[in-house]
């Protein structure tokens, strides 16, 4: 019996390696991520998660598709956290690097325009972190691994009403950021539906690269809301929270998933402790595969990964699963992209480290959100899980 198994495996090995030596095959996937600009940590975590996955799979000989092993080749391109750069990076990856598919961009500000470029050029794209509905809306080639803002907005509103007993709210958002603006509007609509018109007592915005928010915050504090909703990137959150405290605000803040970054606490410090935000997963107290991922990442890169790393891990895995579902890879890149899109559209359910996702017709996952509290040690502590 043993001999037979041994012989069979040797046969397979020789057969496989013969094929390999004939044509060293690889699968090229592009990453459209912000390595510089406003949110460099997001790009870094995305890249590290991709590297970790690539190394694990390549160490095992590569990804097996239809009986053949393919080495993975990930191309990381920097979109500078800018909408226009995200489009040119997408086009570069599609045309110059000839990638099979694209992971990213992460922020909706980049994912919405880059999604259009990918859809126009018939290249599958999966955004790990974008929550704005427009990123995938009516775009058959664009997918995502994160829940949507129309789900996240009400989660934040419900939580604040329950936790702070809030009847009124104020919102401060970034006007030039699709994510921030979209979520702010969804939140406003939902909160006013539940608490009556006018219950969002201040709805203020700021521009790109603004660093002083004192005028907006003065207006907000004068309106005496029960809490302030901040659907902003972590670098701005740190400034806003500090300035609000300088202006005498002592009430609570409620944040959204863009808060969840390992840099938030280094930038914000004590000012952010005790605040809540909705996000994709909670690193503190995770179990199973999620814990395994967190431990491995922390050991390798020296800090705890935020949601964007976990979502990149999931998004890339969904992509790899779809590639395997294709059955085989031909030589025609266009056809491969088309088949991959179909395979992605057919992924009905996926068990990732950020939870189980069921995909709807639009390519959006239906999954749970968690609300975390920033505890006194600056850790993101699980508070509540909300499922659709």
């Amino acid at each position, binding site marked *: 019996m043993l001999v037979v198994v041994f012989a069979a495996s040797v046969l397979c090995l020789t057969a496989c390696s013969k094929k390999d030596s004939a044509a060293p095959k690889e699968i090229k996937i592009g990453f459209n991520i912000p390595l510089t600009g406003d949110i460099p940590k997001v790009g870094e975590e995305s890249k590290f998660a991709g590297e970790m996955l690539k190394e694990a799979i390549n160490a095992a000989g590569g990804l097996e598709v239809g009986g053949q092993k393919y080495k993975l080749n990930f191309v990381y391109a920097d979109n500078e956290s800018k909408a226009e750069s995200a489009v040119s990076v997408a086009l570069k990856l599609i045309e110059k690097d000839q990638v099979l598919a694209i992971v990213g961009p992460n922020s909706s500000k980049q994912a919405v325009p880059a999604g259009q470029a990918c859809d126009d050029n018939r290249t599958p794209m999966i955004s790990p972190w974008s929550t704005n509905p427009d990123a995938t809306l009516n775009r058959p080639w664009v997918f995502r691994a994160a829940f949507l803002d129309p789900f996240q907005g009400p989660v934040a509103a419900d939580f604040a009403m329950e936790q702070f007993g809030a009847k009124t709210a104020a919102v401060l958002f970034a006007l030039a950021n699709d994510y921030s603006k979209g979520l702010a509007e969804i939140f406003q609509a939902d909160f006013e539906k539940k608490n009556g018109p006018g219950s969002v007592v201040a709805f203020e915005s700021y521009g790109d*690269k603004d*660093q002083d928010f*004192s005028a907006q915050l003065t207006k907000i504090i*004068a309106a005496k809301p029960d809490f302030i909703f901040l659907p902003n990137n972590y670098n701005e959150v*740190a400034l806003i929270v500090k*300035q609000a*405290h*300088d202006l005498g605000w002592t009430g609570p803040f409620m944040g959204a998933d863009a808060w969840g970054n390992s840099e938030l606490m280094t*930038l914000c*410090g004590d000012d952010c402790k005790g605040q809540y935000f909705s996000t994709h997963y909670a690193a503190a107290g995770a179990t199973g595969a999620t814990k395994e991922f967190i431990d491995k990442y922390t050991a390798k890169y020296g800090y705890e990964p935020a949601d964007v790393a976990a979502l990149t891990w999931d998004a890339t895995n969904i992509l790899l699963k779809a590639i395997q579902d294709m059955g085989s890879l031909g030589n025609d890149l266009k056809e491969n992209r088309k088949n991959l899109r179909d395979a992605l559209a057919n992924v009905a359910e996926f068990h990732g480290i950020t939870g189980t996702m069921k995909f709807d017709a639009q390519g959006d996952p239906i999954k749970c959100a968690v609300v975390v509290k920033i505890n006194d040690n600056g850790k993101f502590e699980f508070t509540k899980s909300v499922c659709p």
Partner: protein
Amino acid sequence: MLASILQNIINALQWGSFYSLIALGYTLVYGVLLLINFAHGDIFMVGAYIAFFVATFFLSMTTLPGWMVLALTIPLGMILTALVGVSLERIAYRPLRRKGAHRLYVVITALMCGLVLENGNLALLGASRKSFPELIDKVVYTVGTVTMTNLKVAVILSALLTFAILQFIVTKTKIGMAMRAISYDKFAVPLMGIPIDTVIVFTFVLGSAFAGLAGLLFALSYPILDPYMGAMIGWKAFIAAVVGGIGDIRGAFFGGFLLGFVEILVVAFFPSTYRDLIAFSILLVILCIKPTGLFGVAKTTKI
């Protein structure tokens, strides 16, 4: 309502202070050389980073209390930033001036220097943000419903003090007189035995040192540093200097506060979406009425 207006006046005074401090540097260099030093906003950024490194160095190497570290960081940061400003002048502007290049080319060189500073910072230090340490305990004073912090008061006082010092140097000292003389006639002045290069270097020292001070105060007030933080505020401060009448110290000082007030008050009374639109339309109107700026006088000696 009244409390809200008072609060916004304090906000505007703080925000305007930064514009003023940076605008003063633009106006000094323009006054002497007729050069718009577009790298000035980035020198401000370099100043913030230098302050960051000096402060973290003292915090990690010594056990000095925060206020002492701050007391050491202010002069050291100003001196080091001044060195950067002077190096720029030596490396980029002086050779062009020696060759008699047109002012336009020097301005374009200044733009490039700004980009070199931004991207040099990005390449050397990486894209990750730096968080400025809290050197002094923030105290929030509340009078009625109006609040201010000790830091805000310090920023506003620093801007006033800087203005007074510069005004004194330029109008009351010998080197100030030399600066005004060069501004009047760059070719006749050397013939009188005035060392023109020394005066120009001194101008850059003054401008950059106060940009360094602005960088430090900015980093204390908005403690997140990134390589592009100087770009936008630099442009706006330049606009403030032009509205005030570039080349005139009072103009830069007043223009900076004016811009601060307009920006903050627009947000206070209009939807905040219109901040830059309305703020800059107002400035445009001012310039249409008085193209040389509020304190500017056409074609006469400035500074």
